[in-house]
């Protein structure tokens, strides 16, 4: 029995270690903070982990000792304990009181710490310099960069880019069901709830590419509803922003031109927008600069021409249940559309 227990413990420890070593650094990890908020939360996490581990070990030690401590033979209780053995009862009661008080103090401390971090993480909202409006839809993210001058606002999808060190206010809305916006490396999650407007603040501390994912079950493709977050230096961000404001470039060659024609006369135009063309529907993501994005289909596939073609050819294979239909384009048409879309940097 004990050997089995030891084995189990060993297996558990080994498993835990392996996992911890591989997992900590990641593009979607709360333990690898890259932003002010996530950093504070991770700090709190390690603190909680430390304190609670100590408590857990204490309990386990108590249990272990209680189970295996040597006992005098034949000392069995007869009848109610209260009368028979006051000393041990008294000792245990004192222990219980101490234990309860200790628990209370620790809990009070932890509550206070949690509260302090909560305030700190919140406190940044007022100082945001940039406002991004994220609208969740089944199953992708519409991202709007708002600006006091309306013509300097623009829209993208499934991708947020932000300048390093600048607090960014993210306004969160939903158009269908409840989703949750979660970029663990930068901050904890906030829900997007139809009929409500929520807010969160992101402040990236360092450059990098992070991944966010919907964290509230939202139907068929909850699993494939991710977004990329790119933290970049201010100047590169500004350049990117300026480029996003421009309309889509004109087709560069005959194939692209043919693709553009197909796009504008087929099912594509019913759902998508490409600025600078007559396509301006808002069912699906804005494709004005689709080729400049890091991934396709809400973080399902990395962006490249092959994946783009595969996605258009049979979206239902890649993301069953997605709103993007199988359009039945002929191979020629598909080739053209892919060439055209790939030119939209």
């Amino acid at each position: 029995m004990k050997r089995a227990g030891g084995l189990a413990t060993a297996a558990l420890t080994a498993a835990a270690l392996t996992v911890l070593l591989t997992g900590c650094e990641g593009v979607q990890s709360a333990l690898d903070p890259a932003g002010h908020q996530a950093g504070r939360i991770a700090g709190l996490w390690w603190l909680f982990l430390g304190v609670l581990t100590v408590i857990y070990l204490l309990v386990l030690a108590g249990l272990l000792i209680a189970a295996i401590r040597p006992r005098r033979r034949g000392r069995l209780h007869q009848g109610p304990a209260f009368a028979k053995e006051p000393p041990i009862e008294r000792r245990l009661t004192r222990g219980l009181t101490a234990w309860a008080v200790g628990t209370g103090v620790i809990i009070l401390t932890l509550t206070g710490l949690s509260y302090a971090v909560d305030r700190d993480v919140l406190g940044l909202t007022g100082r945001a310099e940039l406002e991004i409006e994220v609208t969740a839809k089944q199953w992708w993210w519409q991202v709007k960069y708002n600006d006091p001058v309306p013509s300097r606002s623009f829209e993208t999808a499934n991708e947020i880019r932000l300048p390093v060190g600048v607090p960014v206010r993210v306004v969160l809305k939903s158009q269908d069901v409840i989703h949750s916006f979660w970029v663990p490396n930068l901050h904890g999650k906030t829900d997007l709830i139809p009929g409500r407007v929520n807010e969160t603040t992101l402040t990236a501390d360092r450059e990098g590419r992070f991944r966010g994912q919907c964290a509230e079950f939202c139907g068929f493709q909850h699993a494939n509803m991710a977004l990329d977050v790119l933290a970049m230096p201010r100047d590169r961000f500004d350049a990117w922003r300026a480029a996003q404001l421009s309309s889509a470039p004109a087709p560069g060659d005959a194939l692209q031109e043919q693709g553009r024609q197909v796009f504008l006369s087929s099912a594509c135009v019913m759902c998508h927008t490409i600025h600078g063309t007559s396509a301006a529907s808002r069912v699906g993501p804005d494709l004005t600069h689709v080729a400049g994005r890091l991934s396709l289909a809400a973080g399902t596939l990395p962006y490249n021409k092959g994946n783009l073609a595969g996605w258009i050819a049979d979206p239902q294979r890649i993301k069953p249940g997605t709103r993007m239909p199988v359009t039945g384009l002929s191979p020629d048409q598909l080739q053209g559309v892919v060439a055209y879309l790939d030119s939209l940097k």
Partner: protein
Amino acid sequence: MAIARFAGAALLLAGAMAGPASAQTGTPSDNVPTASVPSDKATPPTAAAPPDDGNWVMPAKNYASTRYSEQDQINATNVHDLQVAFTFSTGIDRGHEAAPLVVGGTMYIVTPFPNRLFALDLTKPGAPVKWSFDPKPAASAQGVACCDYVNRGAAFADGRLFFNTLDSQTIAVEAETGHELWRTQLGDINKGETMTMAPLVVKGKVLVGNSGGEFGVRGWLTALDAATGKIAWKAYSTGPDADVLIGPDYQPFYDKERSTNLGMSSWPPDAWTIGGGTVWGWISYDPELNLIYHGTANPGPWNPEQRPGDNKWTGGIFARNPDTGQARWFYQVVPHDLYDHDAVNELLLLDLPVNGTLRKTVVRPERNGYVYVLDRATGEVLSADPYAAINSSAGVDLKTGELTMVEAKAPKMGKVVRDICPTAPGSKDWNPSAFSPRTGLIYIPHMNLCMDWQSAEANYIAGTPYIGAEVRMFAGPGGNRGELSAWDPLKRAKAWSVKEDLPLWSGALATAGDLLFYGTMEGWFKALDARTGEELWRFKAGSGIIGQPIAYRGPDGREYIAVLSGVGGWAGAVVVGDLDPRDSSAASGWANAVADLKQKTTKGGMLYVFALPQRR
């Protein structure tokens, strides 16, 4: 005989329209009715409202848009004898919003789609058809007409009739023969561009604008050479200044209208290309200042969250030079319009004492429920007073000209905002009011409706509506859905008003007999005492009336009142489109407001002409 009269009338008209030079030569003292009006009353500028010759050559009667006839044979004492002189069926059963025209013994009627033009010979008994003209517009235009296939009338000038067809053509026809002179295709129905407005002819130019603000078109007003149909200029309502014809002449009163390329920068990128601002309403013209005044319709889509910014130059009033189209001033009545409040209603040119000084003003009962008085030379807002129930805005700041919106009533995505007054069609839609210089009152046929509104994400698919809102309308406070208010522009208050069960969608007509005519959607054609509002006479027409009544002097010298019946329009869509009022959002919410209309009237187009019985 008839020809001679006709020619005389035409000559007279030609003179009136020849421009400010000739208009100014006429001395005001020649003008009997206005001269008799005391100076503390509002009067239309004589140049824009010349003496009545008994004809009716443009839907608004004159450039000042008073819809006032100096015919006084029919008056309060004899109107009860008024009876039908003759009728004429147009054969079309859609909404008849047009005003008949009468020029020297001939009456011209333009029907809704398919936009046939009839000339009726008034000199003969029963007014037989003299000629008719069928422009044969494209049938599919019906699918992109937002609010029934209406047409608001033709315009007559220089022996020619000008009118628009639903499929975006402007056509000139020889008035005498009905021969087509020219036609110009101005818009593309595949993008949702239609034309329903009545043209206005100013100084040899035919001014027309497009409809389709609900289809994501880009609004414009264009001037066509009356002789050839060639485009003289075209002023867009959105986009770069060069397209909007904003140049060195542009001197708006308010600073917020003054910046370069506001027509682009006040929109999200590219949104101005499908941003609406159509010019489908009324145009007035002041020959003295040589300015035309026209409104621009709502920005598209309705859902305001999709178009942050002021959305210039939609929802406002332009003053332009008719020769070049260059803008003189602009005032945005509804910046960042929240409720489909097209600013295209009639613009009455009145010289009005304001704070002791006589100001040249333009008066507009606006969709948002205020009577605006603007200085027509500068665009300054002199006053804006509510004439209907309003809870979506809290008045206009006369210093800045800004309309104060009520935040709680602003449309929201994903939320039904309840009980917004007025509705999307406004306190008053296109149906024009009339002004009588004798009473000094403006007669405003309007509505008393409120609505629930929910914004939704609008998808632009070319040729389909671009709206993004669900609306259901219902009766406003008091339960009456319509009202005719007599507005005193001096006191800035209602003199009297008459409540109507159904919303009013017809124009008003004031006559020198101190009568006021209008029709209701259930088919009553009514005459009120213009001073008291007392109902003196009513007649039940075959179908609901949404047309514009006119008064004219017939070839026999008698006074006639004419009106088209034929329910329809946005308000009557539930009848003409045979909609199902169980769906309260049908016809963009109108079905709910007039769910009982199907029980009260049926469709059918008919001209009614009334006269007093001939004395033997």
